[in-house]
């Protein structure tokens, strides 16, 4: 029971990350019809917003390190700590939450620049060409990050207050041995809030209503005199923000490196396909479903019966679902079928 509960939480947590990335991918595909292979790079750029904020907050004065005599070495003491003492240290400690505020406008800007500067020129091209150009863009972005930050993962810890584990076993009456990292619980709640916010935005605002109408029938919305293209560009920016926030919040779980976007990209596409191309609800449902299945497939009891199942479960499920429901779980007729 303990193991089951923990693996369920792991699956929900993993699923939260998949769902956030897949949600953005689906938003872009559903509105602009673009298969965006640079979406993983947006997740990575979000994570590096957190790294950049941390680096800015820890800009340091160099003090000669007398303990090293072989060469000129320096210790680095952050200015914030020098100027503000414990308050400065606390600000540095909360660099990841602070990064969320910084990442929202930056990712929005990056999304808009990406869409206006490059992606819009490929709307009328084939999906194969869109894939090539966005994949190329992803490589350029990750190489730029590597040139600036190096290839090694950069530790970006959660605030000290939530760095440990929560004793969820006691909450659930499962005993004191069932613990789960606070930050992963926060990530799960955060994913839920962001997903709910995106759905609410599309469901309950006029802007969202127009976008949904555009997704259904772009031409008719255009004939009504609405500049649907402008709104879709903003949706691209919104998708970039969602991916970026997913990246920022993931940094304490996975120390970011330039390649982290690619690691998530393939899985996220599988999630989108399983959920159904263009279906937002499908992307979210498939994200959580595949995350949970991946976690349960990693249990030693399962692997003793089916060795290696943890490494292929996602693709196996994708094959089965596509055989049974060729349009995915919640896919609509006509999407990518012309």
């Amino acid at each position, binding site marked *: 029971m303990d193991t089951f509960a923990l693996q369920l939480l792991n699956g929900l947590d993993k699923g939260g990350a998949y769902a956030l990335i897949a949600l953005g991918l689906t938003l872009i595909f559903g509105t602009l019809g673009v298969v965006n292979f640079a979406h993983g790079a947006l997740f990575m750029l979000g994570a590096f917003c957190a790294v950049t904020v941390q680096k800015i907050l820890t800009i340091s004065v160099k003090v000669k390190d007398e303990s090293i005599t072989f060469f000129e070495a320096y210790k680095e003491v952050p200015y914030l700590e020098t100027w503000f003492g414990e308050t400065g240290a606390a600000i540095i400690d909360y660099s990841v939450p602070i990064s969320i505020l910084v990442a929202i406008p930056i990712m929005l800007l990056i999304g808009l620049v990406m869409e206006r500067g490059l992606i819009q020129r490929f709307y009328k091209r084939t999906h194969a060409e869109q894939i090539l150009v966005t994949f190329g863009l992803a490589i350029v972005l990750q190489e730029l990050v590597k040139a600036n930050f190096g290839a090694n993962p950069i530790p970006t810890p959660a605030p000290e207050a939530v760095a440990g584990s929560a004793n969820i076993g006691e909450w659930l009456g499962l005993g004191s041995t069932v613990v789960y990292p606070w930050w992963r619980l926060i990530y799960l709640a955060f994913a839920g809030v962001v997903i709910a916010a995106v759905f609410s935005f599309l469901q309950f605002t006029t802007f969202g209503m127009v976008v949904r109408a555009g997704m259904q029938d772009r031409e008719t919305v255009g004939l009504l005199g609405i500049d649907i293209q402008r709104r879709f560009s903003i949706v691209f920016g919104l998708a970039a923000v969602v991916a970026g926030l997913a990246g920022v919040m993931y940094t*304490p779980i996975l120390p970011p490196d330039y390649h982290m976007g690619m690691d998530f990209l393939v899985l996220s596409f599988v999630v989108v396909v399983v959920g159904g191309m263009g279906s937002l609800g499908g992307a979210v449902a498939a994200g959580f479903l595949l995350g949970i299945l991946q976690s349960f497939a990693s249990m030693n009891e399962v692997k003793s019966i089916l060795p290696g199942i943890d490494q292929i479960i996602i693709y196996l499920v994708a094959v089965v679902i596509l055989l049974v429901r060729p349009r995915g779980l919640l896919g609509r007729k006509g999407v990518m079928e012309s």
Partner: protein
Amino acid sequence: MDEIKRGVSRRGVLKGGTALAAGLAAPTFFMRNVFAQDFRNNPGDGGTVTFGFNVPQTGAYADEGADELRAYQLAVKHINGEGDGGLLNTMQPLALKGDGVLGKKVVYVTGDTQTKSDAARASAKRMIEKDGVIMYSGGSSSGVAIAQQSLAQEMGVVFMNGLTHSNDTTGKDKRRYGFRHFFNAYMSGAALGPVLEAEMGKERRAYHLTADYTWGWTQEESIKNTTEGLGWQTANAVKTPLGAGDFSQYITPVLNSGADVLILNHYGKDMINSLTQAVQFGLRDKQVNGKDFQIVVPLYSRLMAQGAGENIKGIFGTTNWNWSLQDAGSQAFVKSFGQEYGFPPSQAAHTCYVQTLLYANACQMAGTFYPPEVIKALEGFEFDGMGNGKTLYRAEDHQCFKDVLVVKGNENPTSQFDLLEVVQEVPRSQVEYDAGIFGGELGPYEV
């Protein structure tokens, strides 16, 4: 009498002597001609000889590759008589004179392995066939090292391994044309054993998470043999896919497994992620079987320590070398490297630097670049002053035997470089083993 006189005439003696001298010298002349003509990339009468440095310049190990490249460049500088000479000032015995190798200046080309076996082989092949390298070197992955070593044997060009820690490199996959200065998983286990016993006792239950490839398998086997030899039980040993990223689903079963030690047979990014996440799951604050839960990382590197940040504090492991060592060789290298680049070298940089010097010195000792003679000069070579105490390049498997460092993450670092604290310098005699235990064949000298 006349006949006798004729037999010993002055002219006869001169003729006979000349013929004898020519006869005696003939093998050397012929051999020299053989060396000059019959081996790949013979530098001949040219004024330079080319080394190839094949390191990961892209991919996850690019930072480690960059440090290796810095070390190679420094080694070339020192061999050519530039800079402060580095370890040429401390190495014993030393044949190099600081004027290149056999009077030729060393130049070099670089390649990118991308930490992929096929890319590394393609890059090495290009160096051998197009750039004419007489020797190539590089490291950061055992799978990649073994692939390059096999190529070296096929092509008849010596490969000096950089960072590779699998037992297989000088075990079942050893090659006559491949040499390893770096230590291996067996040595890590042998060195760690007594320290783990002293620090954690004899009654422990270990849980292994192991990277699913050659290095992970051999490390798990070696550490398991050591810990079970101490009387520890193995609760479970689970293989994890390379580059798993999120290890949560592999860590949660540890919580209720009854294990009180987690051994992470991971390297690089995998180790950074698995250790970070294990700490987040509260393993280090846990008490199991009445004991404090412990985590062990058998192979440490500086980049891993940097990536894992605070999480490495107090965690035990081993390294081949550390810049904080106080012997003359280590200090000379740290000084040269530090003055050149502004920070201390990593253990990857150290082993690459030493390997380059050892190869160059072997050529100088052999008096030729002819690979079989250079290989013979390296086989059984004993040296000192390179930072690890007295070291032997064992002839039977081309593995170096030297002192191994048991380290732990520094609890109170005094500087940004002070990441690892040396707990014990384990003497060479404690990590030696029979060359036959891992099998394998070196193969022929002549290819």
